[in-house]
């Protein structure tokens, strides 16, 4: 309990520092998620449409998946240096696989007969993609984004190691200073953020799947 009060009073006394860290954390994770989605969703669609390159893309993605988040952060450092940008790059790389894999699966799983009936009605490929395939794939895609979001938000704490800022700064400092209240200033909001994003995306997922309710 004392630790919790300590953390709260630290936040009250260092409001600006805390807010700055929180904003950086949100910016890092939000941007990484957004860029990751914009890159991997189209890639997922392309992979689903072209059998030949799909194996290539999918094995590359699965390769990336094995690398732990901290390793990715450390690996970009020699190339891009330290600070916000390299952290963003690393987190973006982290956000891609779940979205890409789920987009791929979502498009692949659309019933062939549904596509045939759309073609039979004279829809062209673009209509079919936007009006049929993507809406039908969207529940899986969003669940991919959900996984990515939790991963990115928690991994963004590690960005502090390479000078990316964010809530991780408090955790590192707290560990270094043996100050557990300070550690909580970082850890608690991260946990809350992760839970909130999980809730938010499950709501979106449910809304997208509303047609399945009977």
């Amino acid at each position: 309990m004392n630790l919790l009060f300590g953390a709260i009073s630290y936040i009250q006394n260092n409001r600006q520092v805390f807010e700055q860290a929180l904003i950086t954390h949100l910016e890092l994770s939000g941007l990484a998620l957004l860029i990751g989605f914009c890159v991997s969703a189209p890639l997922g669609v392309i992979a689903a449409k072209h059998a030949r390159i799909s194996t290539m893309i999918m094995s590359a993605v699965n390769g990336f998946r094995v690398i732990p988040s901290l390793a990715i952060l450390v690996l970009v450092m020699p190339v891009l240096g330290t600070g916000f940008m390299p952290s963003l790059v690393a987190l973006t790389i982290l956000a891609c696989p779940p979205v890409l894999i789920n987009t791929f699966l979502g498009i692949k799983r659309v019933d062939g007969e549904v596509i045939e009936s759309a073609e039979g009605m004279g829809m062209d490929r673009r209509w079919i993609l936007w009006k049929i395939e993507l809406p039908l794939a969207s529940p899986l895609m969003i669940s991919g984004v959900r996984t990515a979001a939790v991963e990115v938000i928690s991994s963004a704490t590690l960005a502090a190691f390479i000078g990316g800022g964010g809530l991780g700064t408090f955790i590192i400092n707290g560990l270094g200073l043996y100050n557990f209240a300070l550690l909580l200033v970082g850890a608690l909001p991260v946990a809350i953020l992760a839970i909130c994003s999980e809730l938010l995306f499950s709501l979106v997922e449910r809304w997208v799947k509303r047609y399945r309710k009977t």
Partner: protein
Amino acid sequence: MTDSYAIVFEKISKTFKHAKEPSVYETNLKIEKGSFVTILGASGCGKTTLLKMVNRLYEPSTGRILVNGEDTANASPTLLRRKMGYVIQQVGLFQHMTVEQNVATVPEVLGWDRQKIDQRVDALLRLVNLPPKEFRKRYPGQLSGGQQQRVGIARAMAADPSILLMDEPFGAIDAINRAALQDEILRIQKKLHKTILFVTHDIMEALKLGDQVIIMNQGKIQQFDAPLAILQHPANSFVRDLVHPEDLLQQMAFIKSRDVMNTDAAVLGADDQTPTAGEEESLKDVLLLLLKTQAEYVLIKNTEGAVVGRISFQELKKVGLNAELH
């Protein structure tokens, strides 16, 4: 001359890549405008292939297909398809769209304005006996199989195409609902005079629905004729084994009263006791009526309710006579 034909197959054949044998051997076929033609055969006989070449889901290997006199090869496939309704088994509905969105698909592709689409959706849902108020906003997942297929039919007719292509549309529906849907599509066909090409593997369905029936086996058309003609004069042993022409009762189910009734004006006369039947009703029903009521004859009425003929055991006997000839 070609004007009276909705679909003409000229030397059409289809051989798929890597296949040894053609799926459809060279075929010439003329489908009259406003006719209901069923294509009957076992799976793998080429019936679906034949159908899908009409809207170019499959491209023919040889020959050409004329739709309303125009070579389909010259039209863009998407534009061609928008002019034809297409219905497949129930899974063809878009599960993520409401009933009204499903029905509005083609009008939206064609860019109709909102109000026109709305009116059309209402009219179509009423046509297939789904009250718009109750069904417009529902999702396909909330409907029974039979209701889903009604939506499928409404959707196919959205842009008022003159031709409907139907690929085993009732295949996944239970027997009771299937019979209701069959009656429904017959009623709609009679009302709107669409040209319908209807693929099925169900013999009774093919004979019941078709003005004409195409029987296929191993990529070749075995017979193309009216249901009764097929039953009375099967073209070969394959057709004979398939339709069992010796089953007289079955034959009578496909003979319409109109075709055998005695139209001699002198014999027409009715009192209130005489049973009556419609001219579209089958001889089987008339026979049952005769047996049940113990009447001498049944009076046949047209759709307006006027007496146009009568059927007694005398007329029924001729059916047996025709069948004996084989």
